[in-house]
């Protein structure tokens, strides 16, 4: 009996505790999906959220990790089942698709009065827009540049290439035995498109034009590199991570890759002597704008989500995390203060001036698929650059024409 009484007391006490806890919990919860898997990214993001949660008493931000490889699927399923978070951090070329699906809220009017919007670079900001309306904010940006192995180039008596012709000849000269002169991730997906577009744009074309002399020139470049033996055909199975691994294992003399690889390379291959220069130029300087955006999901928590975005986008807060993430800030004022002591990262900062966003187009995934298919066809020699270009153009026209 006594025991029973005590149990009841404990239960009552527990209930009291819980209910008082629930009472204090009048905060609105805002959920963020992200796909950053490295501990450092996760810790930094958690810290930023904590900063925000501590800064006010009304909104509680929580993050949920959805693996990168599963992210698009999870988001589509969530959209079909109307079971979505309040904010998603997504790869910027996909932003327009999700805006087109009607997942994201149109925040143009709510953000119109926000003075800081002017501070954003055009490229990243445009990737958040669809038909002139704003559906999110850039988180941070990156781009592609050329990495080279200093010892290998020196041994072949070469300077880092500045033009496409340089690239071909240096790549060929540094190809020796097991070492290939050049590599760029050319998988038949968004990653491959990402790598290919800097060539296509370098000819002066837009993402939507490939079946002309310029487009064929870009396709021929990758084909020539493979044909001459300077680039392994295997690049069609190499992700950007694989390419980096090949580079630091000494199997590549040069590669195209992004700043996010830099910390890993420094940690994994401390003795390797390498450096970065801007991408070789075709007709004009061009690079790919990568990076993530915040998308604000439609629903009743848009205002709370915006409060969080404005907080993390403030220069003071952004400075605390953007370097840790390995991104180049999408705000001019913050970007100017970054990487003053880091020669490698400075190259990427400078390259940003010529970086363009992909699309934006709601059916970008299909366009991207056509482009990467054409690139793969001519790279493997399954089709000529001309035939591949014609086929891709037909697909792209059927998509862009129906816009």
């Amino acid at each position, binding site marked *: 009996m006594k025991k029973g009484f005590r149990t009841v007391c404990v239960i009552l006490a527990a209930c009291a505790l819980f209910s008082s806890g629930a009472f204090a919990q009048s905060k609105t919860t805002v959920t963020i999906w992200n796909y950053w898997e490295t501990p450092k990214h996760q810790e930094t993001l958690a810290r930023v959220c904590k900063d925000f949660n501590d800064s006010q008493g009304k909104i509680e931000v929580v993050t949920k990790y959805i693996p990168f490889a599963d992210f698009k699927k999870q988001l589509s399923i969530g959209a079909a089942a109307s079971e979505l978070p309040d904010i998603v951090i997504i790869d910027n070329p996909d932003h327009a698709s999700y805006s087109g*699906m009607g997942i994201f809220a149109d925040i143009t009017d709510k953000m119109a009065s926000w003075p800081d919007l002017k501070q954003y670079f055009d490229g990243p900001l445009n990737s958040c827009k669809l038909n002139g309306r704003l559906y999110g904010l850039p988180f941070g940006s990156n781009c592609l540049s050329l990495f080279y192995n200093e010892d290998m180039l020196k041994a072949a008596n070469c300077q880092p290439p500045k033009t496409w012709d340089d690239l071909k000849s240096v790549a060929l000269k540094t190809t020796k035995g097991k070492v290939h002169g050049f590599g760029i991730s050319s998988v038949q997906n968004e990653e491959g498109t990402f790598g290919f577009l800097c060539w296509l744009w370098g000819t002066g074309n837009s993402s939507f034009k490939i079946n002309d002399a310029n487009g064929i020139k870009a396709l021929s470049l990758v084909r020539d590199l493979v044909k001459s033996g300077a680039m392994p055909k295997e690049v069609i199975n190499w992700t950007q991570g694989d390419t980096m691994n090949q580079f630091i294992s000494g199997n590549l003399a040069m590669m195209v890759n992004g700043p996010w690889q830099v910390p890993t390379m420094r940690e994994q291959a401390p003795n390797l002597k390498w450096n970065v220069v801007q991408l070789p130029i075709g007709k004009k300087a061009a690079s790919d704008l990568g990076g993530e955006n915040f998308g604000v999901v439609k629903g009743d928590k848009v205002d709370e989500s915006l409060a969080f975005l404005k907080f993390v986008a403030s220069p003071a807060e952004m400075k605390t995390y953007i370097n840790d993430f390995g991104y180049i800030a999408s705000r001019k004022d913050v970007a100017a203060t970054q990487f003053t002591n880091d020669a490698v990262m400075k190259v990427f900062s400078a390259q940003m001036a010529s970086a363009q966003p992909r699309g934006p187009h709601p059916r970008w995934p299909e366009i991207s698929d056509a482009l990467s298919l054409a690139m793969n066809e001519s790279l493997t020699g399954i089709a000529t650059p001309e035939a591949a270009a014609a086929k891709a153009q037909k697909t792209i026209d059927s998509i862009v024409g129906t816009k």
Partner: protein
Amino acid sequence: MNRIRLFFRYGNIGYLFVLPAMLYMLALVGYPIVSNFILSVQDVTVTTLNAPVKPFVGLRNYRMLFADGVLQTSLVNTFVFTCCCIVFQFIIGFALALFFNRDFSFAKPIRGLLMIPWMIPMTVTALMFKFMFSSNVGIINQFLQSWGMIGQPIEWLLQPQLAMFSLIVANIWIGIPFNMILISTGLTTIPPELNEAAAIDGANKRQSFFYITLPMLKPVIESVLLLGFIYTFKVFDLVFVMTNGGPVNSTHLLSTYSYKLSFTLFKYSQGAATANILFIILFAVSVMYLRFVYDDKGAA
């Protein structure tokens, strides 16, 4: 009440045994099958995903898929892949089952260990094979070269036919334990007396295999082959990770192509239609199979 009792009196009591499992499966998987079918005759893409009413387009998705051409490749690939895998998995699995059925000290532990390929997450297995088949740093080319069997590295995953071959090899590796264990278990239900009696009657090993072992195993073999066919026909992870349909869409199976349409290109309805084609083929094969197997048994 009497009628109910009458209904269950004889063989119909079998319904009672079957119903719970049946209801369970229909509840969980029946709905997805129906909804997938509906999706395939609607037009659901990026722009219409959240529309309250989805436009009905009849067979347009199917027509568009056939016009595009990748579907045909995937269809052929799926059949080639399935048939090659089934044949070799089954033969190797059967041979190993017979081999390990003999009485020697390593038989049981090794047979047990051969199950391990089944325990590794499929994604890891696929990555492993992708790595082993890579032409530059792959161990397979390395072996072949050091044994002098090839001069130049073979471009396993870089050429359409070779890529298909590599996928088939990897899938056979995964499928062997499945066939081996099921047939092994089947073998143990054959009373040894049967073979002993046959031996006394003067049958040689080959005869007793063809006239005793095979007929006794018939039901097991039938189910192993049918299940193997269904599971192989819809293989997904392996191809998704190893080649993701490449090079240039040449190794897509219906399952990976459907995934690409739905979750990479956001053409949900066309993805559903592709999955439906896969479904219809498997359905037809199963009906034919059941006709073939159960007609002679005269199941009412």
